[in-house]
């Protein structure tokens, strides 16, 4: 409990809106580049790494809810739980020291992506009939056409994109942490988990 209070400093509270805005703005930049990635949880992962799993989870949760509530990207709101888990995992991996080395960060991203795909598949299957309305639906269509169920096909779609997306996101967060000045980094509650 006291650790929780230590994690939520003023800096953390200020960091969360910035992180959500990073998620949203980056999601749009990547969308305009038209590459098959989302990179819309970098802010969430960054908060998880610098301010602990609970702050990360809150960032992910609020990120999707605000996307929905403000009408920016309504279809994201039902996936709020997935956002929360991504932030939580980022915090736990960082606590375990996995964001100190770039290759460990990539592995952490792959695992996070796999878990994200597991949680989002039932939401996508139930709320959205298993489709995303985007290019990755080709994967769903393929698995449906060879006789897979709705849930497994939706999961296959997630696995085809999420692990790579989260691995790159974790790598970008590792890059950012390397680039931040030590004086700034040290003000965050979980700075010790990323410092060498």
């Amino acid at each position: 409990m006291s650790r929780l209070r230590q994690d939520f400093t003023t800096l953390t509270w200020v960091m969360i809106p910035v992180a959500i805005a990073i998620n949203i703005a980056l999601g749009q930049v990547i969308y305009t580049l038209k590459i098959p990635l989302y990179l819309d949880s970098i802010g969430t992962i960054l908060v998880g790494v610098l301010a602990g799993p609970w702050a990360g989870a809150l960032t992910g949760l609020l990120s999707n809810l605000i996307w929905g509530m403000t009408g920016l990207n309504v279809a994201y709101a039902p996936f709020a739980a997935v956002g929360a888990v991504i932030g939580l995992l980022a915090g736990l991996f960082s606590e375990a020291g996995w964001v100190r080395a770039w290759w460990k960060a990539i592995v952490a991203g792959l695992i996070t992506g796999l878990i994200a795909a597991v949680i989002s598949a039932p939401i996508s299957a139930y709320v959205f009939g298993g489709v995303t309305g985007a290019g990755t639906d080709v994967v769903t269509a393929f698995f449906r056409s060879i006789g897979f169920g709705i849930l497994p096909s939706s999961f296959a779609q997630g696995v085809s994109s999420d692990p790579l997306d989260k691995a790159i996101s974790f790598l970008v967060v590792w890059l950012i942490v390397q680039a931040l000045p030590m004086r700034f980094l040290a003000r965050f509650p979980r700075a010790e988990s990323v410092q060498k």
Partner: protein
Amino acid sequence: MPRSSGVHRLHPLTKLTITASLLVAGLVLPGAWGTYALFGLVLLPLALWGKVWQEMLRLSWRVALPFAISVFLIQGFLWPGGTPLFFLGPFSLKSEGLQFALASTGRILIVVSSFIWFALTTRPDTLMTALVQRGLPASLAYTIVATIQIVPRFQARAATIIDAQRSRGLETEGNMLRRAHAVVPLVVPLILSSLVDVEERALAIEARAFNHPGLKTSLAEIAEARWEPALRWAVLMAILGVLAFRLWFEFRF
């Protein structure tokens, strides 16, 4: 979206209750047609009352259409087994798939348009003030309001960075590999530049008693009609009724 309508004058908590109930109802109503009835008989009149029905229909259409197309193509035509309705080359529309696609599209429609209805009729800052008055931690409310305020600024900053890097010769078009190369030069400056003002913001709000434990008063008064608490209870009761109906529907056999 500022309008003077009965819906806009409702207490934000009332609108939150209605939206949450619509979401629950949209997700638990059984069968394919319940959600369409809910849309036509509840959500559309609510949007008419709020004078936002044109915007709501336009935005919902834009968001829900890609999902609807995908779900009809994939689940309608690629449903394994099933009773074919008609053939289209090597594919055939299956009646089970069509049923499923109709049910999913209804659910998507309700989820998408109830969020949009809420967004169109409720100011985030009054919602937060109302929630803080009901005991939501002020720091959490700050976080949400601050997010909504800075998002447009960040979008503008992202556009500036894209332009700046392009003018330095960064290729953001071309084949996939070339576009993928543009990710780091766009992403890293955006994040680093936005982290710069985090520290300053923290100091600024600390200087404005952010951590002060005492009671904070609000300049904004939120009006509430006398019948609104009763309406909220009625909506909650209605949603319990919908849940009970779903349970009955599942287990009646």
